[in-house]
């Protein structure tokens, strides 16, 4: 591949001019710009972005650390981030932390020490306050996506997961159900703790007692949901209504109940969490708590680029709501609103 000097020679302009065309096209007259671009195209020249990054101390890439890349709702966050990054001409490195604290730290270490990226978005991070403080000292712009800001001067876009399950449990109670169950995700992630705490809060506000047999913890997956449903079916009775912490597990529960000829919502009402696309394709259509994953991605990326571009804003904490998508599985009838 030709280098910048060869392009300069072929075009008759100086290397400095070619460099300006590449890096600051607006500082060059349109005529010159067009001529240089044409020669670059003819010679099949593309600027070496890595070398360019070294010179500018910029990598033109950001990193995204997801707890689980197979989780459909996290992928929507990634999509939102990528859209903004693409517009800005940035690459996105995708890192998978497997919901594992150590792995998240390892990822960060490689990214920060290697100066590989201009900023990092951490989705539902497991980092402690101290770890965030030391990350802050590295002066790499970061955004916490999904969880509340733990320390000062950090950009965050967070979702009130507790409020989501609180609203779902309140919805069950308003429909007259008094025996409620909860299938939670087995993990150390704060979002799972929050989902359960919101459920408990609603139950407590209505002085409803919790039957421990109806509280089951399993992995956040179809397999986990299937196991939890089987465990529930082994008991003497079923709850009237069941909140499941993720949609894949909720769909597995639906299938399991169907196989055992237990009618949803007549015999047991169900609400899932995440609003994955297929949740409305099953029968009965799954009522689910939606969280704005794509929007979370868009806003997180915007905050990160505001920081990278030094727009001079103070750090921000943006709150996004969950929404209860009422369909059929919760026993609300045909009411859609």
């Amino acid at each position, binding site marked *: 591949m030709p280098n910048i000097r060869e392009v300069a020679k072929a075009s008759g302009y100086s290397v400095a001019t070619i460099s300006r065309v590449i890096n600051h096209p607006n500082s060059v007259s349109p005529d010159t710009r067009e001529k240089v671009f044409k020669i670059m195209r003819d010679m099949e020249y593309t600027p070496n972005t890595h070398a360019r990054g070294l010179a500018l101390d910029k990598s033109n890439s950001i990193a995204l650390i997801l707890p689980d890349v197979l989780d459909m709702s996290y992928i929507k966050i990634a999509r*939102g981030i990528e859209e*903004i990054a693409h*517009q800005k001409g940035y690459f996105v490195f995708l890192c998978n932390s497997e919901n594992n604290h150590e792995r998240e730290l390892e990822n960060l270490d490689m990214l920060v020490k290697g100066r590989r990226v201009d900023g990092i978005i951490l989705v539902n991070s497991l980092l402690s306050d101290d770890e965030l403080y030391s990350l802050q000292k590295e002066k790499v712009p970061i955004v916490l996506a999904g969880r509340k800001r733990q320390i000062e001067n950090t950009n965050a876009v967070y979702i009130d997961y507790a409020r989501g399950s609180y*609203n779902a449990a309140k919805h069950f109670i308003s429909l007259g159900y008094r025996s409620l169950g909860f299938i939670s995700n087995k993990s150390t992630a704060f979002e799972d703790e929050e989902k359960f705490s919101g459920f408990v809060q609603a139950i407590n506000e209505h002085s409803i007692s919790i039957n421990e047999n109806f509280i089951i913890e399993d992995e956040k997956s179809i397999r986990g949901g299937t196991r939890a449903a089987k465990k529930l079916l082994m008991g003497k009775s079923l709850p009237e209504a069941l909140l499941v912490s993720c949609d894949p597990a909720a769909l597995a529960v639906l299938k399991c109940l169907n196989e055992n000829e237990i009618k949803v919502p007549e015999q047991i009402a169900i609400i899932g969490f995440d609003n994955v696309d297929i949740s409305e394709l099953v029968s009965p259509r799954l009522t689910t708590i*939606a969280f*704005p994953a*794509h*929007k979370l991605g*868009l*806003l997180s990326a*915007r*905050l990160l680029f505001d920081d990278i571009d030094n*727009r001079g*804003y103070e750090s*921000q*904490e*943006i*709150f*996004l*709501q969950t*929404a*209860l*998508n*009422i369909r059929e599985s919760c026993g609300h009838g045909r009411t*859609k*609103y």
Partner: protein
Amino acid sequence: MAELKTQYAGLELENPLIVSAGPWSRDTSTISKALESGASAVVTASIVSEPSPTHCPRLFYKEYSLSNIRLYSELTLEDWKKTIGETRNNGGTIIASIMGESPSELAYLAESVESFGANAIEIGAAAPFGEGLEIKCSDPEFVFNYTEAVTTAVKIPVAVKLSATVTNPVACARAAERGGASGISGIDSVRAFAGIDIETATPYLPSLGGLSGSSVRPVSMAIISMISEAVGIPVCGIGGISRFSHAVEYFMLGAQSVQIGSSILTNGYSNIGIILEELTAWLDNHNYRSIQELKGIVSKRISPFQDLRSDPLAAEFKTDCHKSDCMHCRNACTYDAISFTEGKINLNRNMCSGCGMCINVCPEKLISMSWYQKG
């Protein structure tokens, strides 16, 4: 010639006609057309963090009313940077409408549109969408919180657009004023269902939407009459304005400016210029030197129901009516005061309760109301 200058959202405007947020202010081209047609400012289509997919069809028009299932912009925040920049470069006054679900999200959008060059912001936090979200637009504390979050975040002035569905517009308007708003507008479109083609059993639009146009004007005027007496900041009337007389009605209720929207789709942008010309001519003909002289002059003639005093009035025919086949006034009278006898319509004033309905329905306008002590 009468003075049209006025204020809204902290801005000094050349005239009181602003183009409202909607498909008619969706991009550079539409905004430019609105400005070229004489609008003193344009409120952008509502800018959101995440535009949703576009549905087809999304507009339905019938009986002077527009149903719309898309109430916010399809452009991204990044697109608006360009659009606001371009329209500001052309010298236009741009009020950026922003919509979000929390004070923090609104504050972020506000900072962004301020950096793009918007002259002012209008918060539309209560459109009839966002099913399942806790919008709480009737909660004055929530209105205060989001207004304060936005006014603290930006230096440009901020107005708040009220929803038609709030049950306490006065409390919400005062909360917005307390939160630092420089203007109140109302109303946002009204949640409504467009209707059904009964032959094919198909809804005209596949979801609930927002209703605007003539049919919402009385709803809006009720809210404007309430809030314009309750706040000290300029009020802007929105809803069903397609003629200069509609604007005059809003002014007489206390508004200092109006926003025009759905009628652009049926009358074109050029109607903005026509309204301005006719408004000026009407003011001149009636010896008003400025629109400020109209501000709220009718408000004092509107009383709470319990304070109404009842004059003894009864209807009467100004001239005899011999139309035996016209049933309008007879249908309208539930007091049996109107009958057709001896070759003409007779109105028994002793039986008339003075409801006024026959006057409204008479196609010849032959009936009027006058003082009548029943004997």
